[in-house]
């Protein structure tokens, strides 16, 4: 055994607040699960309260998370050790602090919202147990100081996601969606496991500090293999091509779940992983190119598919996939602060959009098809304001949060020498503006096309979180204003040392902003002409039906990813299983065994004679035979002294 480095990120010590913010949601989950029948409606308040305390503890941990003592950044709490080299602990540094704030903060608001949204559900307490458990799992993911701890969180958020997608498990579609999400995410888990094997073989430790300290010694191939395998995990969790197909189906879960897990937090775990492993990615240009390209392809594909959806949650799901594509593109090419910034703003505006859509779905008795909405602006003015703010923010209209972060990502692709990715990012921004405004116009403008007579307006527990979220949806981006002097850059000073720009782009940041704005304006304009004008609203029902019928097959079938995965993996595995189970096992393997048994004559005779009855008697004979054999050795003449 050679001694290990035990390099830590963060100042070693005991941090009760850190342990508290991590474990409180677990306690809440256990209580809600165990005492669900007794708690009834109080379960929602209990879970929300525990999460509120966790959020408070996170805020109070800010000084510990940002402390900088002797080159160590943040707080490190050791937990336990399986074996030397397999040590587990918690790390709270600016990166994990940011994620923890979003998880507990946005999580708290969504919990509060759920109290109203899930009111009257027969498994109300179980819902909150799962939600609190999810928060615990997600905190485990972002607070772990090592790859296996991260993997544990990674797997547990997948489990929480599985439970919540399949929450209404009497619906076969929800059950199928949950299984699909879980299995695809296990593909990702397995990718991270493989990366861990290579890492341990080269470093002898799973700690982030040890691994990053040793990473300059890795060869190019090893580094690319590690990054590539880690990215398999990131792609599965963050719905990147080709492992994205579970995300649209995941909308089977209740809307608050979509907001918390499948928009604001869990699906950004891949972004966190890459940002966390910045020292590895920055050292591997091949991995940067691969991940940046897949991020760009996902951003574009998600946006294209978002154009042709009619289910309001599926529109948002594809936009989530597209926006995570931006984040992955950002952190992939090395613009870590940009990708992470887009995570932060997206967490707010996408939670806002999902919760806003939840207001509508709740009010219209679970209607999700935008063709059967329309004219809701007058019926639900608050929902309109909430959705409109979110749409404006996601499109990158100047002054709103999405503008600042998307701008950083788009310019970051140029700064890190990827003009092609820049092109894709700009085009995608235009498409995003088009399909988001399309959703807004079709939902809120014109005449109501559905058949719900009485709009069921939500109570304050649902309205309040949406109202609160409007503030960061508009304003959070200003943290990123001001270049190097901005609060954002100062918060992350020292975190992403390896993410400095590599080239001076040919065009200035100001010019790229104008290009993006022009494209976005064009997208909004086309959406307005097609869906927003008075003439467009006039014959909307017929027009929308015609449009739905004329969607190109390649988009209607989502680029055939489901069909390809089904044909390549699912059907072949089942076919092989059927052949082995129904043909090979009984006929070949067992057949050979039976032949052997029968050709040994005595065994065959034995089997036949036993079928005549008197089973126990014959068994006794067999046992007696065995006993005689043993006795022969034991009692052979002279065996005893």
């Amino acid at each position, binding site marked *: 055994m050679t001694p290990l480095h035990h390099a830590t990120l963060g100042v070693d010590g005991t941090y009760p607040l850190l342990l508290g913010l991590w474990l409180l949601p677990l306690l809440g989950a256990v209580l809600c699960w165990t005492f669900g029948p007794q708690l009834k409606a109080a379960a929602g308040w209990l879970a929300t309260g525990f999460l509120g305390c966790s959020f408070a503890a996170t805020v109070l941990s800010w000084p510990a998370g940002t402390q900088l003592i002797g080159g160590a950044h943040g707080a490190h709490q050791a937990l*336990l050790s399986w074996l030397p080299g397999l040590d587990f602990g918690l790390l709270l540094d600016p990166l994990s602090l940011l994620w923890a704030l979003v998880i507990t903060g946005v999580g708290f608001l969504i919990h509060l919202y759920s109290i109203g949204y899930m009111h009257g559900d027969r498994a109300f307490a179980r819902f909150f147990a799962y939600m609190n458990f999810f928060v615990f799992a997600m905190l485990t993911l972002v607070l772990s100081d090592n790859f296996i701890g991260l993997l*544990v969180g990674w797997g547990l958020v997948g489990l929480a996601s599985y439970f919540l997608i399949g929450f209404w498990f009497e619906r076969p579609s929800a059950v199928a969606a949950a299984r699909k999400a879980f299995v695809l995410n*296990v593909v990702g888990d397995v990718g991270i496991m493989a990366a861990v094997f290579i890492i*341990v073989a080269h470093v002898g430790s799973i700690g982030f500090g040890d691994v990053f300290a040793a990473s300059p010694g890795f060869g190019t191939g090893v580094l690319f293999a590690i990054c590539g395998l880690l990215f398999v995990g990131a792609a599965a969790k963050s719905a990147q091509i080709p492992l994205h197909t579970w995300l649209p189906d995941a909308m089977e879960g209740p809307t608050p779940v979509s907001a918390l897990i499948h928009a604001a937090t869990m699906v950004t775990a891949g972004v966190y992983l890459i940002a966390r492993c910045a020292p590895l990615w920055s050292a591997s240009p091949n991995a940067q190119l691969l991940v940046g390209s897949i991020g760009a392809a996902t951003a574009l594909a998600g946006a294209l598919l978002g154009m042709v959806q009619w289910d309001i949650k599926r529109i948002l799901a594809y936009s989530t996939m597209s926006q995570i594509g931006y984040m992955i593109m950002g952190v992939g090419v090395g613009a870590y602060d940009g990708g992470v910034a887009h995570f932060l703003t997206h967490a707010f505006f996408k939670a806002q959009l999902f919760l806003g859509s939840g207001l509508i779905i709740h009010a219209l008795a679970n209607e999700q098809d935008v063709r059967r909405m329309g004219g809701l602006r007058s019926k639900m003015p608050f929902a309109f304001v909430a959705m409109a703010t979110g749409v404006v923010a996601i499109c990158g209209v100047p002054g709103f949060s999405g503008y600042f972060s998307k701008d950083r990502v788009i310019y970051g692709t140029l700064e890190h020498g990827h003009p092609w990715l820049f092109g894709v990012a700009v085009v995608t921004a235009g498409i995003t503006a088009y399909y988001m405004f399309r959703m807004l116009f079709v939902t809120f403008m014109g005449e109501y096309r559905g058949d719900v007579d009485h709009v069921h307006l939500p109570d304050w527990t649902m309205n309040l979180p949406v109202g609160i979220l409007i503030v960061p949806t508009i304003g959070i981006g200003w943290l990123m204003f001001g270049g190097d002097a901005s609060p954002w850059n100062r918060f992350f000073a020292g975190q992403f040392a390896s993410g400095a720009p590599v080239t001076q782009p040919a065009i200035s940041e100001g010019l790229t902003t104008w290009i993006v704005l022009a494209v976005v304006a064009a997208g909004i304009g086309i959406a307005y002409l097609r869906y927003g004008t008075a003439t467009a609203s006039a014959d909307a029902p017929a027009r929308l039906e015609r449009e739905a019928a004329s969607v190109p097959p390649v988009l209607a079938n989502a680029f055939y990813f489901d069909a390809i995965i089904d044909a390549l993996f699912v059907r072949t595995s089942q076919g092989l299983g059927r052949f082995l189970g129904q043909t090979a096992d009984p006929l070949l393997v067992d057949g050979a065994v039976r032949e052997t048994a029968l050709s040994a004559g005595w065994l065959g005779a034995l089997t036949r004679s036993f079928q005549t009855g008197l089973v*126990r008697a014959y068994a006794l004979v067999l046992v007696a035979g065995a006993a005689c*054999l043993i006795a022969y*050795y034991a009692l052979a003449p002279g*065996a005893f002294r």
Partner: protein
Amino acid sequence: MNALGLVLLPFAGAVAIWLLPRDNRTAARALGTLVALATLALTPAWATRAFSVRWLSRPFAAAFHFGATPLSYWLVLLLAVCSACAIFAANVPRARDFIAWMLVLEGSMLGLFLARDLLVFALFWDLMLLPVFFVLIGWGRHHGTAWRYLIYNFSGGLALLFATAAFGVLDGSTDVIGRGDVHLIGSWVPWIFAGFAFAFLVKTPVFPFHTWMPATYSDAPGPMVAVVSGVQSKAGLYGFIAITLAFLPDYLHQYAGLLVGLGALSILYGAFVALVQNDAKRIVAYSSLSHLGLIVVAIVAFQPLALAGAVLYMVAHGLFSAALFLALGFVEEREGTSLLSRLRGLGRDNPRLSGALCIGALAALGLPGLAGFAGEIAILIGVYQSGLVWVTAIALAGIVLASAYVLRMFQDVMNGPVSPDLPVRPDLTWREGLAIAPLAAALILLGVNPHAVLTASSAQSPPVATAAIEPPR
């Protein structure tokens, strides 16, 4: 008292239960549970206190020598836990006889794991087949299953007995388990190795010796299968570590390629077949083939961490397959079937039963945070380091397949709309819940911190020294 007392305790309990009136189920179960709990409680104190009496001196020395090694200690503990849970859960017709047989099974396997003498080991090997055989005859669906189980495993036992006798003649003593200074030389040795290997491969089982298993597991009552699948399947793997690896490492090395191949084949074969089975118990049976194949690979990878992981995964597999078979037994008792085509939507009215099956299922598919994952990752880190990259890849594919077949099993039983054809039965009783709870707790505990089990194999004899990560290259 000592290890012998631990072995005799369940046998004494079985005799006492047979003296009870035939139809007193409650008394039989109470006494059986009491004996099993006493065995569990006394294990830490008695198991490691050795007992030895000279038995033979010619043609070789043999002794009634009992006492736990660090490795067998965990298997004894696993056996005691699983037996107590299974007996407590038992709700079968003719419960008195069934519980007595369960205790005979526990006693004979205690003898097997605690034996320090190969001849005693072989003796208990054959003995532990009988209670399963009689339960299959008395409580199973087809007598053929019982005979197949007995004949198949007994032929392995016969090979084991001959190998043991030859071992004794060559070495002069069979009182060797746990010793590190035994080296066999002679032209018989390959045959001795073959005898041991055959017995262990059949008992585990490993492809292509597995065809006795699915029928046995789907025919026998849940509580019996819980112990057979959970603990008896570890007898062969324990033999591989405590006998083959300890005394015949050169031959194990020589045939490592073959065994790795069989293990890898078992992983994929079991997983693919489990994917399309219709009987939930058969799915778990074939998943066992897949999981135990991984342990065989881990043992012959000759890497300390892989071996440490193998021991942990043996314990983990014991816990989760016991939990799964107990839960499926509860399902079968309620609905009269374990066929996926007939079961549906039980979770709505049986949330606790659903939870019990769920935790076993999650551990089986290797959910991080539960013991199965800890074992798998330790094994695979070691297997990768030993250079078996392609086997690592196969094992990872096995994990993906496991998530598919385990979830299919769980969801088809518990999820979906409630079926009008199935009788509505009450949810898990407190007794049934209490039988599963210790298994679930152990799965979580060992999943969070498996340190104690991971270090058990480092006390093994050479060539397997300390379990730790290899130094950086």
